[in-house]
């Protein structure tokens, strides 16, 4: 019994009740208590006195606490009983399933858009090249079309001369100096216009220092009607200076720029009405 008394006196039982013991000490106290009823009784006394001490020092929690705490317990209780934790599992299943699916979709979508972008750029470049070619073609066609328009206008103009009854056509024939030479002159006294037909002329080519000069003979006097070159490539009707009167036309070879009076020895063609 001495051993039991000493154990009680040691103060370990008080610490045990206060929860201030190591697990080892706890096991020891519990073993002693089950072996010795006196220790069990002592523990009970200590617990009772501390319980009363706590009661003496009690503090009432505020009014609302009773309902709040009891409700939280009953909610807890209801949850435990009525709703087994199946729902949580469901959520767990969905998450890992969804994620790779989504990330794959974005990966492919990104790759697809990149490919689409590259194809679009290539297509754009090719279309741009075509467009430039077309633009060049259009420009050249426009130039050509302009050229034809000019040509048509010019020919209309030529035709109008031939159709115009006021024009008189005169064929100047070669002089003994140049018997093969021929030049067609169209003259309208009404409109005071003189044209020479370069497409229907046959004149020896002149050099750089000389030019042909057209003259009209009015009452025996020569009147200057302008200079021209015997250009074989030109096929146009060339308009010369105007005159209302003329008995005859003649062409002489003169120094470049023309002379004030004809050099009779250099007369190439001549024609009279």
């Amino acid at each position, binding site marked *: 019994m001495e051993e039991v008394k000493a154990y009680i*006196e*040691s*103060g*370990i039982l*008080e*610490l045990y*009740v*206060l*929860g*201030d013991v190591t697990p080892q000490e706890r096991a020891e106290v*519990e073993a002693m208590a089950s072996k010795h009823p006196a220790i069990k009784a002592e*523990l*009970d*006394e*200590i*617990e*009772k*006195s*501390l*319980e*009363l*001490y*706590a*009661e*003496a*020092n*009690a*503090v*009432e*929690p*505020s009014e609302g*606490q*009773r309902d*709040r*705490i*009891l409700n*939280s*317990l*009953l909610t*807890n*209780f209801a949850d435990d009983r009525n709703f087994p934790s199946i729902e949580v599992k469901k959520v767990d299943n969905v998450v890992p399933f969804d994620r790779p699916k989504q990330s794959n979709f974005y990966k492919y979508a990104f790759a697809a858009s990149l490919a689409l972008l590259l194809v679009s750029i290539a297509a754009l470049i090719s279309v741009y090249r075509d467009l430039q070619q077309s633009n060049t073609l259009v420009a050249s066609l426009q130039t050509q079309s302009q050229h034809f328009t000019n040509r048509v206008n010019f020919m209309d103009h030529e035709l109008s001369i031939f159709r115009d009854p006021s024009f008189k056509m005169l064929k100047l024939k070669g002089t003994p100096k140049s018997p093969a030479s021929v030049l067609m002159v169209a003259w309208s006294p009404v409109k005071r216009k003189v044209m020479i037909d370069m497409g229907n002329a046959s004149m020896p080519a002149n050099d750089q220092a000389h030019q042909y000069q057209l003259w009209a003979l009015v009452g025996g006097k020569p009147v200057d009607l302008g200079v021209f070159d015997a250009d074989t490539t030109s096929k146009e009707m060339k308009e010369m200076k105007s005159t209302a009167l003329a008995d005859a036309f003649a062409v002489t070879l003169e120094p470049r720029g023309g002379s004030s009076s004809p050099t009779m020895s250099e007369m190439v063609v001549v024609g009279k009405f």
Partner: protein
Amino acid sequence: MLALRRREKIAVEALYDMYSASLFGVISRIINDTAVAEDVLQDTFVKIWNSFASYSTEKGRLFTWMVNIARNLAIDKIRSKDFKNQNKNQELENNVTFIDEQRNTVYKPELLGIKELVETLKPEQKSILDLVYFKGYTHVEAADELGVPLGTIKTRLRMAIVQLRKHFN
């Protein structure tokens, strides 16, 4: 007790009515902030409720088991990081209020025999008992705090409880 084991509503209500004030007395001496102390009281009842199966009458009285749960939860709370931060902010402004609150709640005038109880316990006995029982100190920490040897602490603690037993008998 049987009703508690069957987890019936009436048992919880009885448990609350019997013990909430005593448990809250312990909790609110460890935690000065009333709102936090009330949260801990709720946690205490939740824990008691959920782990009631682990209590057996052979190990001791029900209140002893419950008060240890309450004390441990309260100590966990004041040692937790967020509570420390919160407390730092309030410390200066509310110190006086805390002290006043404490004075009001330590002894309830309407309870009989308190005056005699105070006279029964010697001051050194009371301070050690309150440190361990109400402040949640271990006896080693209490020895440090009061600057007395461990053996003395154990003796004083025992003598304090012996005095209590005499008083309540």
